[in-house]
């Protein structure tokens, strides 16, 4: 449980961190909250030669509203999101998702940006971020670019971030109109990771029917994905039991589910459809 030798630097600014990362590329890792990276290093599953600790950079930890967007700094901890009173009013899925991550220690140290950049296939944030149609602001040597949540997760532990890029901010369109949200998961009892996690964001028209639905699922396959078939089956319909049940049955359409000791691929598919139904019901209340 002792990591291999590594060097450690603490840049004071994001620009300095980006330049260090550009110099060292794959040999270096960004240290955010460290609650995935440090355990992997202790087991020597990860052996970066250089850790770039971005924990002392000012202005990477914030939750603010700007125009029609909610902007969250990459180094904002899960607990800061879980306990934010304003978010509970304007975008309750974010605190609800944060509250279900790991345990208290993980939520106090772990960060939203770290979790997203690590892209664990069973992490909670990716589902929420896709369902909320968020955008990732990424900083590199030339400036910054914006990546849509749908394009951010490429494969297991692999994102659209280049080797010299750092995720700096998550931008979420502020939910408007008559909307409902939920995040529900089946936690693995030992690790707390999602065996299956489902995030739902619904908007309803004046008659109460579903105007648009945004549904994303994590834990089932190598990366979180948008359940487009579920969304299509809800759009424009009255949210009665039969509609919700039918929509939820499409939760894993076209998805190659993975199995492990804890849950087989078939069981995961089953859980995904049950939890998609419950998550839609919760969001429709």
């Amino acid at each position, binding site marked *: 449980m002792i990591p291999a030798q590594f060097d450690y630097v603490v840049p004071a600014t994001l620009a300095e961190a980006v330049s260090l990362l550009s110099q060292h590329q794959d040999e270096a890792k960004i240290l955010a909250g460290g609650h995935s990276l440090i355990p992997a290093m202790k087991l020597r599953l990860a052996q970066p030669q250089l850790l770039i600790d971005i924990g002392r950079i000012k202005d990477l930890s914030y939750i603010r509203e700007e125009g029609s967007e909610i902007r969250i700094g990459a180094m904002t901890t899960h607990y800061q999101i879980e306990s934010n009173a304003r978010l509970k009013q304007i975008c309750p899925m974010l605190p609800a998702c944060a509250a279900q991550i790991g345990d208290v220690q993980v939520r106090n140290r772990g960060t939203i940006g770290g979790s997203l950049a690590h892209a664990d296939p069973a992490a909670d944030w990716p589902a929420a971020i896709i369902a909320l149609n968020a955008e990732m602001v990424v900083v590199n040597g030339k400036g910054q670019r914006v990546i849509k949540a749908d394009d951010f997760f490429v494969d297991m532990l692999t994102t659209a971030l280049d080797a010299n890029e750092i995720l700096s901010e998550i931008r979420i369109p502020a939910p408007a109109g008559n909307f409902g949200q939920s995040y529900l998961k089946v936690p693995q009892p030992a690790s707390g990771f999602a065996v299956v996690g489902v995030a739902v964001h619904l908007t309803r028209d004046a008659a109460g029917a579903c105007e648009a639905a945004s549904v994303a699922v994590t834990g089932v396959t190598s990366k979180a994905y948008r359940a487009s078939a579920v969304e299509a089956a809800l759009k424009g319909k009255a949210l009665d039991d039969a509609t919700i049940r039918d929509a939820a049955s499409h939760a894993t359409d076209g998805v*190659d589910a*993975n199995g492990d000791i804890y849950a087989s691929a078939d069981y995961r598919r089953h859980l995904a459809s049950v939890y998609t139904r419950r998550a839609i019901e919760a969001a429709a209340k």
Partner: protein
Amino acid sequence: MKIEGTHELYARRQRVYEVLTDPAVLKRCIPGCESLEKTGENSYRATLKAGVGTIKGIFTGSVELEDLRPPAHYRMTVSGKGQPGFLKGSGDIDLDERDGLTVVSYTGDVQIGGTIANVGQRMIQGAVKMMASQFFTAIEAEAKVEADETPPKHGFFRTALRWLSGKLRRMFRGKRSNPS
């Protein structure tokens, strides 16, 4: 753990079989393969720097090919170990010809132990699928080129592009044959 999968390759079966059993090609196509040397008739010794994302490890091990029935079938036995753990297993590889393309299907049983199995169990199946699709994408590119021609180049971007174009091609083909 059981592993199985099928990959469709746009290349002749005979040529696919040749490249799948050619150590020089395998060395280029196996993700993270640093060395592959022949130790006997149909047996090889390999060093791999394998992994996904942050999680990486160096493995050394042996590969043996048996029951060679070109161009339709062979059996592969693998055993290897490295700092993150060990693996051993064997599997059957079958090649079928269908509508001018070659369908490679593999099925086998693999035992994985050590740290990687203790803490990474939930990721193993996904990692295997990811590496298999990288491997077969590279193999397809190799099989499209004849033995006496210059072999293609591989790299992260080339593999990603090939994977993407293959996916699109399959999507459109699927749409045509299933007009719903």
